[in-house]
């Protein structure tokens, strides 16, 4: 591939991966099972790495992002800048060009950050090179897949070549936990998704790049609870391997998660640590909130059911909005089940975009106070608006109540 015998795109992708592999100390490449890429990549990068490529070497699915065509058509929101917040965005012409390239390559138009909810369900030991760090964490923690931390350009290069440097979490010996997380001081019985998010955000910030193990969380954690716990681990950190004893396939026991060794360090999460995170994400008062955002990461069908139930016989308050991110497939099922009609009737906005990092209602229209149940979203709203946008942080019901009123 390096010699150009498979065309210039493959050569560029392989050259990129070779450099990356050398930087990371990899001695060889590994075969990749599944890749997940961003439709809104800079067009030049996409064109360069796919030039001459007629077929990808992996099953490729798509991340959500900023869709300039959707935002102009539906909400007349466009930006003349190349960024929405500090997230890049392709302009309409480039985005259409990207979609045409991706369609030609028969990429699956999943448009979601939770591919594991729409049929891209990894098996244990599958090699997943996924854009979107929340999906990487889910693949490792919930499914036992090998999903090393990688970027949006690496996942594109792996789609084209079918390989990735053999390093990091691909190696079994690098998957064991070294930092043990103890939560016995916390009252987990009443933990909401927002509480799991605050816990994941705090632990991820402390963990940095280290692998961790939660030793005492309930082994009955649902997919949604796991999603909110693991998705903010990388928001201010780089922890990609999170074992949950009794939940993670590789962690039937604490000993298995630690690889038979003693934890190098123990982190006891205190009630105060949790409160500090809640306070940090609660810098807006409820009555300032003009927008509620759910679906970071994208809502599951159970969450959509809950949202529909909360919006039954309610409508938006004047000048208030509610936006939820959901994949096309989950949307279609929810439509059949009648949830969508209830949600839309209440005046809520549903789309398959990224509703946090590149949400133009926040980044372009300039909404200044947002309610959310996602720690990941709250942090993105803070950091990517240079602190202009403040947040209210609570469970879905309390956020819904801030922007709606009885019909």
């Amino acid at each position: 591939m390096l010699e150009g015998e498979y065309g210039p795109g493959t050569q560029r992708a392989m050259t990129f991966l070779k450099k990356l592999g050398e930087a990371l100390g990899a001695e060889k490449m590994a075969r990749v099972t599944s890749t997940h890429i961003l439709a809104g990549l800079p067009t030049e990068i996409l064109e360069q790495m796919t030039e001459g490529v007629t077929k990808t070497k992996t099953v490729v699915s798509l991340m959500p992002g900023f869709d300039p065509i959707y935002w102009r058509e539906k909400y007349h929101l466009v930006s003349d800048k190349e960024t929405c917040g500090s997230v890049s965005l392709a302009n309409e012409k480039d985005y259409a060009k990207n979609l045409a390239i991706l369609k030609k390559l028969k990429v699956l138009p999943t448009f979601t950050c939770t591919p594991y909810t729409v049929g891209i369900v990894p098996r244990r030991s599958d090699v997943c090179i996924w854009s979107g760090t929340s999906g990487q964490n889910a693949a490792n923690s919930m499914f036992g897949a090998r999903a090393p931390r990688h970027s949006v350009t690496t996942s594109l290069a792996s789609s084209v070549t079918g390989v990735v440097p053999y390093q990091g979490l691909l190696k079994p010996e690098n998957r064991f936990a070294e930092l043990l997380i103890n939560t016995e001081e916390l009252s987990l019985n009443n933990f909401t998704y927002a509480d799991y998010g605050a816990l994941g955000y705090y632990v991820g910030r402390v963990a940095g790049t280290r692998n961790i193990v939660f030793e005492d969380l309930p082994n009955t954690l649902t997919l949604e609870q796991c999603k909110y716990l693991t998705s903010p681990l990388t928001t201010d950190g780089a922890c990609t391997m999170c074992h949950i004893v009794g939940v993670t396939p590789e962690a039937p026991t604490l000993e298995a998660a630690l690889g038979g060794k003693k934890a190098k360090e123990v982190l006891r999460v205190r009630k105060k640590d949790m409160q500090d995170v809640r306070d940090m994400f609660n810098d807006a008062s409820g009555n300032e909130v003009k927008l509620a955002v759910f679906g970071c990461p994208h809502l599951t069908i159970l969450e959509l059911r809950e949202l529909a139930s909360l919006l039954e016989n309610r409508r938006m308050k004047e000048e208030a909005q509610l936006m939820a991110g959901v994949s096309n497939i989950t949307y279609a099922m929810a439509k059949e089940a009648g949830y969508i009609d209830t949600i839309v009737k209440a005046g809520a906005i549903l789309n398959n975009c990224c509703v946090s990092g590149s949400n133009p209602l926040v980044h372009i229209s300039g909404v200044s106070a947002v309610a959310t149940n996602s720690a990941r979203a709250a942090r993105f709203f803070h950091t990517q608006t240079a602190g202009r946008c403040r947040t209210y942080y609570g469970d879905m019901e309390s956020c819904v109540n801030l922007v709606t009123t009885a019909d």
Partner: protein
Amino acid sequence: MKLKGYTVNPGEGEGEAVVVDTPFSFLGELDPSTGKIPSPFHPQFGQSLKGKILVFPTGKGSSMGPVIGWYAMKAGKNPAAMVCIEAEPIIASVAITANIPMVHKLDKNPLEMIESGDYVKVDATAGIVEVISK
């Protein structure tokens, strides 16, 4: 003083050092249109990284990093070179995608050997970092 390390992305760059003590994410911590640190939650809020030698422990955060680095490259707002303790895969792919000379795994801890304001010459191809104290 010279430090010896390994190449993340080859090339050469020199300039004034900006030492950031915490892991760095291009998404949220580099505004590609100004080259400054845009987050008021960052201890070095407002600091320009354009043309500087960014010295930091490792990367963190979003997989979107290389896209930010790419737009910053197009706008001419990236650091002249980067030096870190050990690159994780996303910060390494930022350096490669945005063609920023970068060195890591030095024989001495760069956070202890380099101070903000020092003049630093990075030969990332050879893996050499030369520090000229301010």
